[in-house]
């Protein structure tokens, strides 16, 4: 049962253009959403987050949008840089009967071409 889905395994973007990574979730218990970036042979690195009471959060070149009614969030990277090439994971956190949980999507591999 995939509660957090990233339907695009990979994305290729030209340097300087916008990268848009998408994520869908199914469980209404989630009230906090995060994006992590992962390079090979390293653990994931926190990038940006958003609370369910907001619909947008911005940090430099990174913006996360949340559409609660559609249970959809997206990460926008503008402008994209070659150093942004990595695997990006969407994660959702919240409380359910099993206690607190953080559920990750399968990841999207971003390639930024110079």
């Amino acid at each position, binding site marked *: 049962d995939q509660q*957090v889905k*990233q339907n695009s395994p990979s994305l290729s973007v030209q340097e300087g253009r916008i990268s848009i990574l998408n994520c869908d979730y199914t469980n209404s218990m989630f*009230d*906090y959403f*995060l994006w*992590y970036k992962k390079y090979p*042979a*390293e*653990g*994931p*690195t*926190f990038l940006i*987050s958003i*609370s369910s009471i907001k619909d947008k959060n911005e940090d430099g070149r990174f913006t996360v949008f949340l559409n609660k009614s559609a249970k959809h969030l997206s990460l926008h990277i503008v402008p994209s840089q070659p150093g942004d090439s990595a695997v990006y*994971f969407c*994660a959702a*956190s919240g*409380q359910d009967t*099993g*206690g*607190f*949980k*953080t*559920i*990750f*999507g*399968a*990841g999207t591999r971003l390639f930024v071409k110079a």
Partner: protein
Amino acid sequence: DAGVTQSPTHLIKTRGQHVTLRCSPISGHKSVSWYQQVLGQGPQFIFQYYEKEERGRGNFPDRFSARQFPNYSSELNVNALLLGDSALYLCASSLWSDTDEQYFGPGTRLTVT
């Protein structure tokens, strides 16, 4: 400042054996979470501990257990290892629990033969 550290880096075990993985959180962080990551998937949530108490548990069998010590370090134990337990085991720490962003260690690569 040191980040999250995990030991060992790599480990090879035989089916049926037991394994203990260790994690030291960032200084001042009181919450530790454990994840299992297999190739091609995102990290799968196993446990979260906060102030030495289990706060959350994922869908893993009882062969998986963990604990957190007074210094906030943590151990993940897996009994009766199966081939399917081969994975990268990630530890993450955060200041509190719930909504804090987590800081991940480099992981322990476990291979079960």
